[in-house]
Structures are given as structure tokens and as C-alpha cells.
């Protein structure tokens, strides 16, 4: 039984990836989460990936285990207001909604760009956030175009940031540090700056800015990237002098370890055209799995880079129950990621049922 957030009621009135990821963390830890949906359902019911040959969204299933689905149109005005008034937290996408004024707890808006500012009325997407936060420009081949990160990554990060702000205020109210009602406003774009804010401050101090050097090249660190092995792909990050020495030994290229200018990551990067062909050639003597374990044994942070299929078979992730099962209304099972953090005394839900549209409406009819 998940109890850490027991007793909290969270109502999502908008149903975006960000609001649903935020509320998923609440439901995973025992809060009652209610999706207040229009008769057409939240838009996340119509986003890919879908189950093959159907319009059933696997993404929606992942985001909505252990939540209740209530049809807004099937509640009376009084029932609707009671639902909102009794909520500890109401999540919305930031659009005007008269329901929000009824909330006596925490109202948490998650929008692309927040209220105010030049981009306030922009139509937002994940790709735009990465374009404007400075990350996209560094991805892809030198000649371009830059390559957009796939999926909904900025929206998920926005949901995480909103969870922090929202639960922080819920806790603040319970501790007596804050008073209700409280308004939280999260910008997905600003949340995505978590990846590049350090780079911006570094530029302010040094005037140095890395240009796009090609796929998997991130100055000043070298070697870093994903490289082919005899079998599979290995992820390299060799940063410190001791890691470089151990890496050279592992790949049987100890002559590189003694070169003075290769003792720093930047020195190695400057001579990439000499070093990289040798590294690539030596990596082909190993399978990625073999190299990964040997590297870790030598205190070098190497990684196997699994495909989606391989990811589900990684012993580390299997043993930790990193994937679990969402159960759809038609009884189909879907393997989905588990919550990434585990409280030992109050463990999270692992997987769970995904409510059909409006399935729980009657619970709130008085």
C-alpha cells in the first residue's frame, strides 16, 4: 500500500503530458488523482505511440495508471465545484478556466512559456524548447541541420519541475509555513533550461562556447560518445587523467597514455583526428558487454548502450523492477517504466490499472 502521499487529492483539468506526468508522480505515491475529462477525453488519449492497428495511446496508458477518470459534463455544477474545492492541488495547462477560482488549495499551471514575456502566446512544442534553450544547436552533423530530440522530453521535464513546485507548496501548507490558496506557475521552456543554464553562466565567465562538432561530440570532454564494437554499442566517457590511463591500458594503446598533451580532455579533443581512428579500431576487438564490465572493473565509467529491445532485458533493470505493467480497460497489458525513485518504507505503486474514459464519474455523483 502506497501511503507517502495518502490523503492528498489532485485534480487534473487539462490533461497534457506535463500535467499528467506531474500527477503520475502523485498517484505513484498514493495520492488520489482525478482526471476531469471532457466527453472527447484528454488529448493525450490521441497521441502516439499507439497500439498497432488501433488508436489506443500507449503514452496515455503509461501516464495514467492508478488515476480516476471523471467526465466533466456528467457532473452537476455543485458536484464539480465540490470536487475542485476539496482538492489539495489542481493542475492545469495555464489557460483561463473559471473552475480554478474555486480551488482552496494549490493551483499549479504548467504552460509552454509561462505568463508574460515575449513568447507567452507562442504555440509551443518540445522541439521549440530545445531550439530556444540552446541545446538543439549542438546536436547533429557539423553541416546541419541540427537534429531534434525525439518524443516529449521537454514536457516530461516540465511535469517534473511542476511536481517539485507543487508538492513543495502542499508540504509548506501542511507544515504551517505557507497559507492557502497558492498559485504555482511552471514554464516548460524554463524547466528545459536545466540542461543549458550552466553553459550560459560558463559562457558569461569564460567567453567560451562550444560549436556543433558533429554527432556525439561535446567539447571539452573527449573521448565521449557512442561507438560500435564487435557486437553492440559502447558509451565512452573518459574524463580524468587516471581514467585516461586505465582506458589506454584496456584498449592496448598505452603509448597514448604517456603523451603529455593527452593528459587533459581538451588536449585529447584538439588531437581528435589522430586519436579517434585508433580508438574506433581498438573497440572492434571487444563486444560492448565485455568492454563495459572490463571498463567498470578498471574504474572507467563505460556504458552498454542498449536498444529498446535490449533495455528490457538488462539484468540490472530487471532485478530492480525498472519496468512494470499498465493494465488497460480491455485487459491488455503494457510494459512501462516504473517510478525512478524508491522509498523503502513507503514504496510506490508498480504499474496499475488505466481507467476508461469517464469510468469513475458515478463516484462523484451525489
Amino acid at each position, binding site marked *: 500500500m502506497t501511503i507517502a502521499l495518502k490523503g492528498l487529492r489532485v485534480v487534473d483539468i487539462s490533461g497534457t503530458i506535463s500535467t499528467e506526468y506531474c500527477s503520475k508522480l502523485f498517484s505513484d505515491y498514493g495520492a488520489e488523482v482525478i482526471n476531469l475529462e471532457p466527453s472527447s477525453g484528454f488529448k493525450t488519449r490521441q497521441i502516439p505511440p499507439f497500439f498497432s492497428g488501433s488508436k489506443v495511446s500507449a503514452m496515455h496508458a503509461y501516464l495514467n495508471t492508478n488515476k480516476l477518470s471523471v467526465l466533466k459534463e456528467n457532473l452537476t455544477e455543485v458536484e464539480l465545484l465540490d470536487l475542485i474545492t476539496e482538492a489539495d492541488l489542481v493542475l492545469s495547462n495555464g489557460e483561463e478556466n473559471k473552475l480554478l477560482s474555486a480551488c482552496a488549495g494549490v493551483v499549479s499551471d504548467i504552460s509552454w512559456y509561462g505568463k508574460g514575456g515575449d513568447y507567452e502566446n507562442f504555440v509551443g512544442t518540445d522541439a521549440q524548447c530545445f531550439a530556444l534553450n540552446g541545446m538543439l544547436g549542438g546536436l547533429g552533423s557539423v553541416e546541419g541541420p541540427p537534429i531534434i530530440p525525439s518524443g516529449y522530453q521537454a514536457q516530461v521535464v516540465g511535469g517534473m519541475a511542476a511536481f517539485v513546485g507543487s508538492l*513543495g507548496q502542499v508540504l509548506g501548507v501542511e507544515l504551517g509555513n505557507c497559507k492557502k490558496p497558492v498559485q504555482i506557475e511552471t514554464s516548460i521552456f524554463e524547466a528545459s533550461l536545466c540542461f543549458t543554464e550552466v553553459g550560459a553562466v560558463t559562457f558569461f565567465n569564460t567567453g567560451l562556447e562550444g560549436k556543433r562538432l558533429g554527432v556525439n561530440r561535446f567539447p571539452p570532454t573527449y573521448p565521449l560518445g557512442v*561507438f560500435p564494437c564487435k557486437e553492440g554499442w559502447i558509451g565512452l566517457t573518459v574524463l580524468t587523467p587516471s581514467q585516461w590511463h586505465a582506458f589506454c591500458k584496456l584498449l592496448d594503446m598505452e603509448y597514448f597514455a604517456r603523451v603529455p598533451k593527452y593528459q587533459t580532455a581538451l588536449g585529447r579533443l584538439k588531437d581528435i583526428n589522430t586519436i579517434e581512428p585508433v580508438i574506433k579500431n581498438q573497440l572492434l576487438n571487444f563486444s560492448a558487454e565485455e568492454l563495459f564490465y572490463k571498463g567498470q572493473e578498471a574504474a572507467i565509467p563505460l556504458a552498454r548502450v542498449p536498444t529498446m529491445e*535490449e533495455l*528490457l532485458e538488462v539484468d*540490472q533493470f530487471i532485478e530492480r523492477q525498472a519496468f512494470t505493467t499498465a493494465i488497460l480497460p480491455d485487459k491488455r497489458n503494457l510494459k512501462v517504466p516504473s517510478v525512478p525513485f524508491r522509498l523503502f518504507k513507503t514504496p510506490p505503486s508498480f504499474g496499475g490499472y488505466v481507467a476508461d474514459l469517464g469510468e469513475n464519474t458515478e463516484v462523484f455523483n451525489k
Partner: protein
Amino acid sequence: MNQNSPLKGIRIIDLCMGWAGPLAARNLADMGADVIKVESCENFDWWRSWEATPEWIEEDGAEKSAAFNTTNRNNRNITLDLSHPEGRDLLLKLVGTANAVMENYSGSVLPKLKLGYEIFKEVKEDVILLSMPAFGSTGPWKMFRAYGSTVEQSSGLPHINGISSDPPMMHHVAYGDPVGGLNGVSALLVALRHQAKTGEGQFIDLSQAESLFPLGAHGILEFTANSTPPLRSGNRSSLFAPHGVYPCVGEDKWIVIQILEEGQWLKFQEIVGAPIKKFGDLKDRLSKLDELDKTISVWTSSQEAQKLMYVLQEARIPAASTQNVSSLLNDPHLNSRNFWQWLDRAIVGNQPNPSAPFYVNEKRLKIKTPAPTLGQHNEEVLTDILGLKQNDLDRLKDIGIIGTKPRMKIIKK
């Protein structure tokens, strides 16, 4: 009452280094928690430098790391040599006053220091310990080492990004770090709520690699729902067209354009005019992607990226120009929302600090203090909280347990 300090009265002992753990701590400090970061003069936070030299120490290099300074604001900083029994004892006494301890060492470090949850619990029954090693605290990889890049590589994300003709594509030099940090603060907030309700502490196990799975969920689910591996199709979409990044006037200037609805396409046709009139509905466009992208690229090549972004957005067409990291401090949107807060910091002077990504009651959380210098709060913390006297501090300094300057490690044979 202060909405800016919901976590007032909560004390966190932060043993973290690098980016992920300190970012989690920063979020807690931003919300008013008393975060006390513990480093030592020899084992200082490696984000100050992983290539320390005597010259670097002499020139106050430890205080000049923008990465460290950006991530450690609003906290207090002390030094304790935890490998010395007295340093360890002082840490345990401090833990005795705290709600939670957080650490992101590799798995072998705490046991070597004879520290861990059971030991912390002996001095504070209801303490929380957040442990956030790269792969979690259980499983065959629990002792393995990783950086944020290793975490991204291990998460499978590279296999759902980029173009199929390239190697699997990484996003960032340390993509796993900030995501691990956001998960870390989330985990602690959940545990602090349980602690406040019940008086119970607990151990929290966070895997930074698993923290990236939600960001790759679309790829994982593509496989688990359909047993087919997701395609790495770069900037193209199987559902929308045009959908890409197009060149603009100037060196390395680009604009993202994504037409997600037919109404947007009609407006886009109006703006671009004749060159794209020959393309029809979505089905037609998806069948002519090469020609469509080429035609749009020719048109955008004569456009100024940022100006075009505003023109397209005015017509409700999703578009954004690519910015460099160097332009973020001048971004008009961020500046009008006061995203950067400027604070004077010892050694490096006036510095920009990124705000928390959320407003509370229409206000930014105010950043109260910049990142402290190494050991800046030794005296304040050790006397005010632990009741040590000046002669105790002098002695601890003499034997190297505390200090305010890094030292090169002495390799013991």
C-alpha cells in the same frame, strides 16, 4: 508566513558532488530548506575541477567554477575530513540535527567511510537518506561508476534519437544529471511529507539511469506496445509535414517549423506563397518529403531566423529559431520574466543565477545567497549548531579536518 520558504525549518545535510545531487539540493534550498553542504579540503566537489593542480589551488580555481557556483547557491558550506574519526563524528552530530541526508557517491564510498543509513539512523531515528548512485543502490551494477553522459548512454535514449545512418545519438555532455537532480528533489519531498505526517524516516534509492526512462518513454512504449523498434528518423515525422529544422540567413542559423494541423498549413502557404502552393494535403506532403523540405529550405535561406519565428508564431504556426547558449542571457522572454537573478559572489563578482522554473503567487523565488566559498560556514555551523568553541576550531584546522582551501591529495603508499 512566507510562500517563498515552504521548507523553512527543514535541514538537509548534502554530501553530493557534481551536478545531479547538488541540483536536487539547490531546489530544496531555493524553497527555504537549510542545506548544509559538506566537502573536505582533499575530497572537494569534483565539479570545482577534476584536473586540480597546485597552481589552480593557488589561483583560487576552486571558487571560479561557473558550474559549481550555479548549482550550489542558497546553501551553507562546511569542510570535514570524513576519513578522520573526528571529522566523521562531527558529521554524525550534524546528522543528529537534520531531517535528511543526501549523497550521490559511487556505491563503495559510504561503506568505506563507515557511514550509511543504519549508522545515520542510530543518531537520528527519523532521518531520511537519499542515495542517488547512477544505477541505484541494488542490483549487479550498484557499485558501477557513471557520469551524466554514462547515464544517458545506459538509458537507451541514444537509440531513439538522431538519424539511422549515424551512430545512436546523445543529447548532451551530461543529460542524466539535471534529470537525476529533479528526481532527487522529488523523492525527498515525498519522504519529507511522510516524515512530517508520521515522524518516520526512511531510505530512498534513486537510479539516475532509470530517471531518464520517462524521457525515452515514447521509444520504450513503441517497442512494448508493438514489438517494433522505433525508427531514428531525425527531424522527420510520420504524422506531420513539414516538420524540420531549416537554414536561415547567417552562419549556423536555423528555424524549427512543425506544421501540426491543416489550418497551420494553410496559413503557412499564405506566408510562404507560390513556392509551396504545389503541395497539397498531409498525405500529399508526406509522399513528397524530400521536395517539400528542399523547397522550404530555399525559402527560409533568405529569411532572418528570429524575425521569421515571430512572423510564423503571429500566425499560430509552431516555430522557433535556434539559440546559442551564449544568447540565453540576452533572451528577451527570459529577461522580461526575470529568469536570471544577479548576485555578487566572492572571487568572481557579479554572476547570473537561473531562477527556479516556477513562480509562486506570481513571484519568482528570490535567490538569497550565491554559492558559498569552500568552508565559508565552518565557524557558523560548527559553533552555532554543534556548540564548538574557537579553540576547537583552531585545533580542527591545525590537524586538517576543516579548512577553507583545497589541498592536493597525498597518495598514501
